[in-house]
């Protein structure tokens, strides 16, 4: 039986609760101890004490005590609620939900417990459970509109659109007077209801609702956009035309509106003249508009294209718009346009038009006109579809001659060197560009990025430090972590990976993984906040985005890198760990030496236990005994959220095949093959899979072996692996990357063929489409074979790419 408190102790217990809420933890513990002195087994007090201890950071003790509390008083909702709060604090939401449910069973009237439970349910996307919770919350407080809206959202997210709409209607029917026009919550609720109607596909009803209930809605843009969409769906072309025109008048830089207009005007796609007239009208009307001038370039061809492009280019170069090339390069998929554009720019230069520039020049600004044209050509010859780096360099030098202080021009020069494969020179030039404008963070960012590409990690963080907050404890790197600077962490990690510093690389990738965790956790507060703010559509958008958060390209490279690095073979790993440990010891000694110098101030916060990183070099990470488990941590979300990324599937295969998880490896291989059957990696993985099976099939459980046999159909029957590989090689003899993959496979299949494979790798350099990236892969392949034609390959590659550092003779 639970212990019963005296009146005095009951009031003391209230004090404990109050102390907890006021964050007076020491006082709270003291008061709790006072109660426990006489009633050592009072469950609620023990539980409150545990909760306070948890807030003090003593998580383990708190859990232990909370369990004791439960043993003392299994029927106390306080004990269960606290137990749930502890689980919630360590982010084990499933256990927390279970505990809250126990608590709620014991105390069904508690609004607090019900609310906490509901928040976790929606965070965990337990829609069924959330609906039950919201229904009960609505029953107990049906006078609050939020509770109705929340139930509608619950149904909506669970795919029950009609129910969701019904709940909103029921609430509306309880209103005696229509809410005022400026009632924001109502305005948004109307729009939310409208989106539910449209989602059910009843556009007529949606339109009617929009024109009645939504007539004076505060979200004007949404009204205009939805009207245009509904009218289009309903085939009311004339009205839809007007609706799209109204949208363009409001915002003339949104392609979607022009597309909508052209669609409802039912202009024949081949009638370029009529199409162009639509855009011309707006170009004329809005002298500063870009879209109406540029969009016709997408569909025009021949002389019409030339004429329009000429006008566009003229105007942009006169103004010195730095993004002129970026604005047009998507047209390069057409070879005609790819040739027409630079020739127009050449004409612009040779005709002397650039000198007759009508744009006013400010402070001797010469980045307009001719220099701008040279700049365009430099970018043109640097672009991968029209690359001629020597010419690119020539043009950028001309531009720089005219405008020696231009940051943009120097940036492009650095890029050209990057494309040459000379990361050192690229970094050097980008640093020059940075020095031209110390106060611009954009160029600072670029400089740091190029330093990382050149493996200058220390210099890069120093560069970044010019703009990070000086007060941040832990310096620039800590600030970049705080500010979730994903690009830096990615590039820094990739740089360390290139240098074989696995620990540091993993550490950076892990920190990105953690940032995504934070981003997922971030939504929690909005489950209640958004209902109060009444911004339901934005909230639903956020939920849906969060559902697929990890498909974001900021995650994907990290996932593949992390999986691959988590995947390094054990000896490499140990070596790296040892090296990292040594470096750490050295750093420690140096730090100690510094501390002992009394005159040198140590940075404030060095002693802050929270900020102290117990594994600054990632040595622990690298030394993990479970590399595959770590790799899985990255991989699982990758495969779940980006199944159509072939890189993800390829990375997945690598991890699974090493773990001898053949079924899972096969699943990745089949998925990759479905995405691109002829992909070079798919080919080599197919062969490796077969080789692995030949070795291990007998050891697999019969059922697994059977499934693999029936599903693994990538190899044609009755053809030997060697034959299969040779077929691939001859089929793709004009593709350097695939040839390389085939040669790699040949070596795997028959080591005795080694010399011929080696020599053939050198020949890859003669294939027309060989790129520097493929050549680097070839170099790495030969390096991994540790003999043969490595030097011959290097020399041949160096002759082909004389500026690339990677092929230069090692000094």
């Amino acid at each position, binding site marked *: 039986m639970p212990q019963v408190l005296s009146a005095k102790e009951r009031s003391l217990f209230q004090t404990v609760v109050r102390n907890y809420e006021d964050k007076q933890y020491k006082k709270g513990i003291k008061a709790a101890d006072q109660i426990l002195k006489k009633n050592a087994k009072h469950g609620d007090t023990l539980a409150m004490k545990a909760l306070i201890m948890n807030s003090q950071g003593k998580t383990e003790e708190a859990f232990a005590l909370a369990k004791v509390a439960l043993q003392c008083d299994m029927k106390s909702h306080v004990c269960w609620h606290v137990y749930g709060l502890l689980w919630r604090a360590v982010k084990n939401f499933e256990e927390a939900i279970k505990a809250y449910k126990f608590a709620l069973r014991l105390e069904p009237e508690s609004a607090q417990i019900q609310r906490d439970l509901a928040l976790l349910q929606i965070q965990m996307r337990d829609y069924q459970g959330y609906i039950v919770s919201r229904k009960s919350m609505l029953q107990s407080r049906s006078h609050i509109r939020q509770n109705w809206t929340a139930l509608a959202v619950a149904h909506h997210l669970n795919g029950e659109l009609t129910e969701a709409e019904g709940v909103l209607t029921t609430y509306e029917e309880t209103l005696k007077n229509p809410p005022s026009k400026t009632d924001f919550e109502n305005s948004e609720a109307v729009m939310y209801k409208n989106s539910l109607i449209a989602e059910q596909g009843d556009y007529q009803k949606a339109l009617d609702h929009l024109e009645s209930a939504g007539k004076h809605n505060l979200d004007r843009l949404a009204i205009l*956009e939805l009207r245009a969409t509904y009218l289009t769906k309903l085939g009311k072309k004339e009205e839809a035309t007007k609706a799209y025109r109204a949208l363009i*008048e409001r915002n003339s830089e949104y392609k979607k509106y022009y597309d909508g207009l052209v669609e409802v005007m039912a202009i024949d796609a081949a009638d370029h003249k009529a199409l162009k007239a639509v855009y011309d009208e707006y170009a004329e009307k*809005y002298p500063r508009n870009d879209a109406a001038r540029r969009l016709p370039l997408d569909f025009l061809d021949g002389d019409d294209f030339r004429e329009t492009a000429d006008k566009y280019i003229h105007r942009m170069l006169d103004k010195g718009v730095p*993004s002129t090339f970026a604005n047009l390069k998507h047209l390069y998929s057409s070879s005609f346009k790819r040739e027409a554009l630079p020739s127009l720019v050449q004409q612009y230069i040779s005709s002397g038009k650039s000198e007759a520039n009508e744009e006013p020049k400010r402070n001797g600004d010469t980045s307009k006109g001719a220099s701008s044209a040279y700049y365009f050509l430099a970018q043109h010859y640097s672009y991968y579809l029209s690359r001629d780096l020597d010419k690119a360099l020539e043009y950028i030098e001309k531009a720089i001659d005219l405008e020696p202080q231009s940051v943009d021009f120097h940036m492009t020069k650095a890029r050209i060197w990057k494309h040459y494969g000379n990361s050192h020179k690229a970094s050097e030039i980008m640093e020059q560009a940075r020095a031209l404008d110390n106060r611009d963070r954009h160029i600072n960012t670029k400089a740091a990025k190029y330093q990382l590409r050149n493996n200058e990690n220390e210099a890069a963080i120093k560069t970044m430090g010019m703009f990070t907050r000086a007060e941040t404890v832990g310096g620039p790197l800590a600030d970049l972590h705080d*500010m979730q600077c994903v690009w830096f962490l990615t590039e820094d990690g990739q740089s360390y990976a290139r240098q074989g510093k696995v620990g540091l690389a993993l550490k950076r990738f892990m920190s990105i993984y953690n940032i995504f965790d934070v981003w997922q956790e971030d939504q929690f507060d909005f489950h209640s906040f958004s209902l109060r703010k009444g911004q339901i559509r934005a909230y639903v958008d956020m939920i849906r985005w969060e559902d697929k958060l990890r498909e974001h*390209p900021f995650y994907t490279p990290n996932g593949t890198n992390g999986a691959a690095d988590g995947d390094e073979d054990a000896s490499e790993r140990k070596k790296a760990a040892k090296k990292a440990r040594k470096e750490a010891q050295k750093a420690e000694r140096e730090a100690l030496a510094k501390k002992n110098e009394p005159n040198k101030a140590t940075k404030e916060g060095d002693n802050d236990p929270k900020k102290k990183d117990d594994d600054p070099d990632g040595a622990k990470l690298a030394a993990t005994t479970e590399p595959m488990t770590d790799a899985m941590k990255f991989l699982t979300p990758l495969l779940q959220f980006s199944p159509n990324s072939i890189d993800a599937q390829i990375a997945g295969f690598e991890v699974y095949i090493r773990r001898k998880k053949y079924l899972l490896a096969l699943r990745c291989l089949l998925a990759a093959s479905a995405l691109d059957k002829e992909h070079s990696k798919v080919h080599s993985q197919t062969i490796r899979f077969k080789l692995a099976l030949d070795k291990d099939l007998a050891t697999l459980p019969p059922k697994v072996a059977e499934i693999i046999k029936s599903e693994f159909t990538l190899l044609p029957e009755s053809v030997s692996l060697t034959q299969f590989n040779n077929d691939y090689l001859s089929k793709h003899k004009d593709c350097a990357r695939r040839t390389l993959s085939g040669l790699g496979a040949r070596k795997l299949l028959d080591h005795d063929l080694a010399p011929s494979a080696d020599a053939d790798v050198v020949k890859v350099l003669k294939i027309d489409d060989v790129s520097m990236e493929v050549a680097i892969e070839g170099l790495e392949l030969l390096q991994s074979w540790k003999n043969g034609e490595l030097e011959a390959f290097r020399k041949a590659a160096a002759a082909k790419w004389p500026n690339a550092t990677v092929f230069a003779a090692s000094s």
Partner: protein
Amino acid sequence: MNNKAGHLRSAPIIERLTRPLAPQNLLSQQSIMDIRVLQPSDIPHVQHANITNLPENYFMKYYLYHALSWPQLSYVAVDVSRPKKSPYDYPRIVGYVLAKMEEDPPDGVQHGHITSLSVMRTHRRLGIAEKLMRQSQRAMVETFGAQYVSLHVRVSNNAALRLYRDTLGFKNEKVEAKYYADGEDAYSMKLDLGFIREQILDEQDESEEVDEGEPVGELGAQKDKASALNGQKDAAQGGKKMKVRVGRGLGVGDLVEKNESHKA
């Protein structure tokens, strides 16, 4: 949080209307510089643009706080012309304005505030910053009844000053000493939005007449001649020291819930 597969349910594939275009839909598009409302899914790239361009940075939750409190006010300029690297390519943000309504305004007057505005260096001189600002200003009036909009700008940032003062018509209110973390002063600027209110009234009158009226024209078309404004180099501006701390150290959680501490 623990993502147990059983608890994850993919959202039904619905047709997106005004809300975000799913990235898949963007694959077929070639549009270059769309100006449109910010969506939650844009936030990682907006955050990227911000930390690339400006010293005043915020973690994701602070962007979410804007996007979920005043979803009509923040706009982005989007470059979707790059060749797609994967089926999950998200549109790249080349410029953004992050805006809000002042909560509990000290002067009791409803007004908007520009938290942050920047355009990538590679995409300047296209008037993107101005276009973003005009869209945001209009929504401030329409949706939230803003009387004016305020912002802070570094006293040394001539390009931004030209945009705000000469192009958009902001007036200098006062200098706030040492407003920025690095010790620089800020101009506190204001723009009365009465002209937008009048514009809206005019439009309403027109649309109530027989529909013959000439279109009203690009927002602020009267400024068309001012091509000089196109030269803004960096429309940089960020939060006040105090505010930065809110964005950084405390997070929305503290603006939201009394007891829910949050880790940034």
